């Protein structure tokens, strides 16, 4: 009985009782003829934002953190940036919705001039990433227990080859993915609500692929009606909203599939969840 009670009461102790001590860390670097910029971010907890830099710098970052529990990391060498916020080994751990999580903030502004690859990893974080307008080559986003909003507010200017998302227990929204102009999107989701919004400007890209693997959760695809969409579905105890599609063979096609200027091939593997389509 005591053990049971302790288990029930454990989550209460995860909330810190003491006042936190928020400190600041900032770093910046000017452009110096870089041909490639690789950004590696590991962010333990808090709110993380990425935006396009408007000052001519290669990157600028500013981190507000709780020095009692976390420490900032920033290292740049030869076009490779490693930056982020890590838990102190002595007092690490993950708090769900704790003050650290809501008050710690990391902002990263990246130059739109240099071809950039992102490798982003979050722990218990809320991420608001606007990768629009960047010279994007590749992006990999891995989240743990997080709420992430990835937006491409304006079309990217680079040649994006691959966009990868690995989402754990999370709420994940990717908006205006067409502006990313990536040839391939790969999504792996654990549990949670996921929205993949394919609106935006395709910029003449003839076709794109989306490889989506969903565990237990809800997936909403936001698709423009002008887009030709082919869906290949493998599901187990999952529902699929087939409105707007016609079935040919084992696949689903939009009526405009043969005539559409831009085509999207979607391969969905889903278990224990809903797959909904929101036509725009």
């Amino acid at each position: 009985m005591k053990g049971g009670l302790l288990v029930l009461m454990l989550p209460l102790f995860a909330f810190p009782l003491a006042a936190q001590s928020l400190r600041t860390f900032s770093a910046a670097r000017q452009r110096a003829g870089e041909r490639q910029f690789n950004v590696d971010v590991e962010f333990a907890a808090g709110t993380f934002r990425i935006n396009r830099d408007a000052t001519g710098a290669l990157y600028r970052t500013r981190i507000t953190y709780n020095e009692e529990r976390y420490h900032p990391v920033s290292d740049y060498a030869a076009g490779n940036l490693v930056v982020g916020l890590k838990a102190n080994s002595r007092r690490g751990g993950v708090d769900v919705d704790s003050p650290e999580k809501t008050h710690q903030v990391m902002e990263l502004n990246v130059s739109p001039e240099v071809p950039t690859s992102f490798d982003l990893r979050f722990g218990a974080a809320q991420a608001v990433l606007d990768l629009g307008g960047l010279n994007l080559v590749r992006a990999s986003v891995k989240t743990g227990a997080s709420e992430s909003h990835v937006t491409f507010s304006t079309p990217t200017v680079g040649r994006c080859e691959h966009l990868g998302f690995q989402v754990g227990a999370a709420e994940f929204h990717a908006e205006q993915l067409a502006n990313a102009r990536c040839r391939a999107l790969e999504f792996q989701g654990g549990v949670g609500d996921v929205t993949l919004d394919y609106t935006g400007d395709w910029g003449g890209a003839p076709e794109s692929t989306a490889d989506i693997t969903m565990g237990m959760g809800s997936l909403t695809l936001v698709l423009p009606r002008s887009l030709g969409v082919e869906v290949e579905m493998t599901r187990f105890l999952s529902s699929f909203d087939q409105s707007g599609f016609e079935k040919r063979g084992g696949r689903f096609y939009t009526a405009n599939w043969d005539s559409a200027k831009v085509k999207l091939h979607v391969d969905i593997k889903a278990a224990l969840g809903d797959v909904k389509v929101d036509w725009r």
Partner: protein
Amino acid sequence: MLFAKVLALPTAAALLTASSPPASAVQGPAQAVQAVGHTIDVSRRRASLRFDFSDDSRLSIMLAGGRILLNGTEAGRYQPGGPLERAWRGLLAQADTFSTAGVIRGVKLWKVDGLAGPDLSAKQAIAAALTNLKAAPTPPAPVAAAGAPPPQEPVSPGDSFREGLGEKIKKDIRRSVEDARRRAEDVSPDLTPRPRAAFAGVGPAVAGLLGAFVALGCIAFGLVSFAPRQLEIVSGTVQQSFVRSFFAGLFAQPLILPALAMLIVGLILTVVGILVIPVAVIGFVLAVAAGVVGGYIAAARALGDLYLRRKMAQGDVVTADPTYRSIVVGLGALLAIWTPFALLGWVPVAGPILLWTAIIFTWVMATAGFGATILSRAGLRSSFGRHGAAELSGELSWSTVDEIAPSRPSSGRSVP
């Protein structure tokens, strides 16, 4: 009050002529080397500024624990919390949104009044380290770049005076440095409301579950204290006639509102009773609530009772008062059905399934408890419960546990 004064006219060279720095001080970079990046780290323990140069060399200036470290080497000492440290922290706090060129301009214009002794020497060491500091030329900003406008940075003193704005800029910078220093002392958290994660409700849900457990436990202990026999009879009725109790509760539920309506109509017909209708309605609602809650607690006790009797039959010793213990165990067991929902309720699909499972289970137990309350006439009639239970207190009945649940089933003694 001593605080940093950033003046437009003095240059770093002028500062250097005032006094020569300590021999141990790290000198600034060679003339050809340009700063291409910087890092500012302001924490309670340290306040550091690091420049990265185009030849991959670095210059770090750190104030920590009363020591000034230039590239990790002690170059002087200062008074912790004194004017130099306050001014340095204020400068860094202000500069954390600047570009590298802006930071260089800022530190070159940095001046602190009223320094003496070790603070003065330390300031001179810093100034010496910054002697040849020069920023790499800033590339033109992209035309199409959008977003927030870049922060205003300290302008060149010559330019400002040529434009006749020197005095205004001095005031602006002084004010902003003072603001920044205040910010550095107490970094205010970002209070912008954030979207909550889907699993953010786990903590409140678990806390709510614990709250329900504590509240029901308190009510149960009250019942044990003030109506122990009634509780035991209702509990015995649940245990001995669970199916009958469940159906009694099931059939009673749709009759609750008609019964209330009949009560009201009856009171109206008596004319005199019209006056007591509000009291009667409140009393009826309270009686039904007491019947449901009391029945649920009695069901919990029956469950705990069953579990503990089995444990004791296996030879385990129960040290605490068995009546209280059976209630705690039973309530824990009944509420445990809510634990999966509290922890995983945010998960799509699984969340609603867990919720409905918990609701149905709780409804079944509450219905059985309510039915047992009705069958036993709120614990006054023991014909559906354990025979003899009404005559014994909870403590005494436990002394005969071996008779109720024999520890050796092979002995052939039957369970009554």
